[in-house]
């Protein structure tokens, strides 16, 4: 089958467009499809983009609903509003993560299954972050030792925690 538009090249892009209940089928070659614009492009690229899926997820999120009611939520650094983020599924700058924080945790849990990074840490900040992670671990251990009534170990852990706390919060 030849392209309906130019009649020269084989039609390789086939799609159906529905506008107000009117169904129209198109059979185009690639270059005509590109000129036709968005709808045709979607037929090549696939109907769902990750961003559409994300904004779908956000729309169903009750935590996000609440946020939506505060219309002014906006990242002070790049100016992206939360509403825009919802539509685009993308952030405007690194600071958006802080600006939209409370609404993000449940989104991250959905798409990432976790909202806590446990991987690599930049060397430059490695020192402090590593110590903080170690502190979290030690505090957990301390609770555990107290629960087990092992007070000698607990005292030892407490001293170690104080020592580390002085390092990160001088």
């Amino acid at each position, binding site marked *: 089958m030849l392209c309906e538009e130019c009649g020269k090249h084989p039609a390789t892009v086939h799609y159906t467009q529905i506008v107000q209940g009117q169904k129209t089928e198109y059979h185009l070659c690639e270059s005509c499809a590109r000129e036709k614009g968005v709808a045709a492009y979607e037929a090549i690229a696939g109907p769902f983009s990750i961003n559409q899926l*994300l904004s779908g997820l956000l729309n169903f999120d009750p935590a996000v609903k609440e946020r939506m009611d505060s219309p002014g939520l906006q990242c002070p650094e790049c100016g992206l509003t939360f509403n825009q983020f919802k539509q685009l599924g993308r952030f405007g700058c690194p600071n958006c993560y802080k600006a939209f924080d409370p609404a993000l945790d449940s989104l991250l849990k959905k798409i990432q299954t*976790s909202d806590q990074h446990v991987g690599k*840490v930049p060397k430059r900040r490695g020192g402090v972050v590593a110590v903080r992670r170690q502190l979290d671990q030690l505090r957990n251990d301390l609770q555990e030792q107290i629960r087990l009534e092992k007070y000698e170990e607990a005292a030892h852990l407490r001293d170690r925690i104080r020592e580390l706390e002085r390092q990160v919060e001088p």
Partner: protein
Amino acid sequence: MSLHDFLSQAASKWLKDDGPESDIVISSRVRIARNLSHQTFPMLSTDNDKEQLLHQVIKASQTPDASRLGPFEVLKLDELNDIDKLVLVEKHLVSPALIEEKGGAVLLRKDEEISIMVNEEDHLRMQCLLPGYQLEAAYQLANQLDDAFEDSLDFAFDEKKGYLTACPTNVGTGMRVSVMVHLPALVWTEQVNRILSAVTHVGLTVRGIYGEGSDAMGNLFQVSNQVTMGQSEEEIIGNLHSVVRQIIDHERKARRFIVQEAHGRVEDRVCRSFGILAYARQIDSQEALQRLSDVRLGIDMDIIKGVSASILKELMVATQPGFLQKYNGHEMGPGERDSKRAAMIRERLRTDSN
């Protein structure tokens, strides 16, 4: 190496060389997304912002640590013609998204094992692409690259959320690890969908390299991690590793099975495909991929001798539209491409038999 050589040289290292398990694993890739603190992501950046960012990245690539991993050639996508851009995409050195937007650039190492996209969705996307099954090596290289650039660039990082990226699907490690596998016997025995859908239950994702699902053309699939947060880099690689190992084992078993159960049919299909590739005067890319996959299986199963095994990956890239047009030196419509594609394949097969 000049730009001309860069682009017209038919094969990057990953396309030319063999690697471990290369009868099944075509390539291993690690891609790391990084962004600079206090700068808008490329989506909101002005042309000027993008220009400045590129300048910063180029400077960072010239520090002693970074240049030890280089040297890198800088290609600004706006300065390339459409065919050259397409060739970069077909060689898997840049993403299709990079060539769509203004201000994109890529830093390429000579052997094309390292490519650093600048101003794609994120400020930097650092990619290491190695032939065969070399996940560990690819990660080590990507990790060194990350460390070297981090010395002079202030990467956006949050203690809880990790490396911050433009899309929340990449935040955390910012790392996407993928392995390209050739699974003709699993497709032949109709096991592929069962195995591949199992993979999605363990935080990994599979897609056809060309085409989707069981229609994946050329029986080529990409397995990669879905999740970038809540797992360390080592865990992500470990997960992928254990799954890919199993896929390799299943494919090997399936190959042994079809040798025993259907040797005549396999031999017939392989040889038919070889005959078509050797004599066809017109072939579209879909058929070419399928026939090349058959021939590659025939080489791996010792049915076809004297043809180099790299023919599949070499030609799967070289017979794509951009490469074909580059090779022939002019723009072509699909009809002309089909005859030039057939000619290129015949020529490639002749090179081996000489």
